[in-house]
């Protein structure tokens, strides 16, 4: 099957490769070792495979790898810098918003994008729930996740850093 050359950045590092056009971005990323990206449903309903493409949250299972050409991809592996967790990751831990952990990388990326687009704007519980409606979690019942998002937003406001 047809191969196309692509160049992209993943968590800040440049990659160039030929990809089979049938490959999803999920398969490409997992093949390169970014195994935080989980395949849950494979049809865009659970959000476990959420990554950021140029800052926008997408289900990588419904995204062709060739579409990532010339784009910047972020996965949860890149959110931890110099051994330090991001404010979103810290907030998930502090609120106990992780149980089995399968949905967590996708949720962390959704929250990261959600908060970056709403810096310094007050958030209601309803807005947080709507902004995370594309991620399923079978363990937590979502209350701790919503608190984690609120806490991460507070952290960002206080520290002024993302």
């Amino acid at each position, binding site marked *: 099957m047809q191969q196309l050359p692509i160049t992209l950045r993943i968590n800040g590092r440049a990659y160039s490769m030929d990809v*089979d056009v049938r490959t999803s971005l999920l398969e490409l990323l997992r093949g390169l070792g970014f195994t935080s990206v989980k395949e849950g449903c494979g049809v865009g309903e659970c959000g476990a495979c959420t990554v950021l493409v140029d800052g926008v949250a997408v289900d990588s299972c419904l995204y062709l790898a*060739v*579409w990532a050409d010339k784009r910047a991809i972020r996965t949860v592996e890149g959110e931890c810098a110099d051994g330090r967790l991001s404010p979103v990751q810290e907030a998930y831990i502090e609120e106990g918003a992780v149980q089995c952990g399968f949905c967590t990388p996708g949720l962390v990326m959704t929250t990261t994008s959600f908060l970056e687009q709403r810096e310094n704007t007050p958030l209601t519980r309803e807005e947080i729930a709507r902004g995370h409606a594309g991620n399923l979690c079978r363990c937590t019942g979502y209350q701790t996740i919503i608190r984690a998002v609120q806490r991460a937003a507070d952290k960002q406001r206080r520290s002024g850093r993302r």
Partner: protein
Amino acid sequence: MFAMENYHRATDLNDAVRALAAHPEARVLAGGTDVLIRLREGDGAFAHLVDINGLDELRQIDMDTSGTIRIGALATCTRIIEHEIIRSHLPVIAASLATIGGPQIRNIATMGGNICNGAVSADSACALLILDTELVIQGPAGERTVPILGFHTGPGRTILRRDEILKYFLFRPGQYRGIGAAYCKYAMRSAMDIATIGCGAALRMEGDIITSLKLAFTVAAPTPVRCPRTEEAAAGRRLDEETLALLAGIVEDDVQPRTSWRAERDFRMHIIRTLVQRVTREAANQQGGN
């Protein structure tokens, strides 16, 4: 791996149309949120693809000096929802698209795809119908402009020929100025769900008299539909409980809901009667708000 047998990445719109004309079995791939799922399920009807995802020429959202608004077929739901022109002038389009899927889906799904896949439940269809939106379609011999009314011909079917591609949606100022419009999606869940019934209404009022009502439903017939009998009955009447009750009776002649695993016919009819009243009332409130 998606079960593709043939893939053509279009370089521009003409190239895409040429590729479709040359390969009659090929289908268009846009945002991918329907087609890639079909492909993952091994649906052979989608094994030959012409990928238009990269065509930025189909993403424009703008307004010309006459007030005609253009939305490119490949504009994503999120971009349309957040666009200043749409928020100011076509809020019912933004409200409709906001009911689709969840954030990740809206970030890549396109309004063109929502209409061209022919879905009876398409959330943008009611808003497009009550605004009498025009669709500009490109084919090998040139472009043609058609009304949204009549675009859908059956479940999963439209008037689009195999070698045609929707370019953009046109909204004329005479259609959207001075109206109040609303959309309500009735579904079991408030996200990531398909409408059991969708209802849109666009209302023009003089005082408390309805001068015109445009009413549309999804999942109420084999295609998204307008409601000519109800619309005719509404014109010239006072907007009050009596009129709304009358319209709720007449609307039964404008729709043919069916029983599916999602809902019984009678239940769908009950929702339809309820939504006629609720959404017409909400459209009137929206007019007050503009």
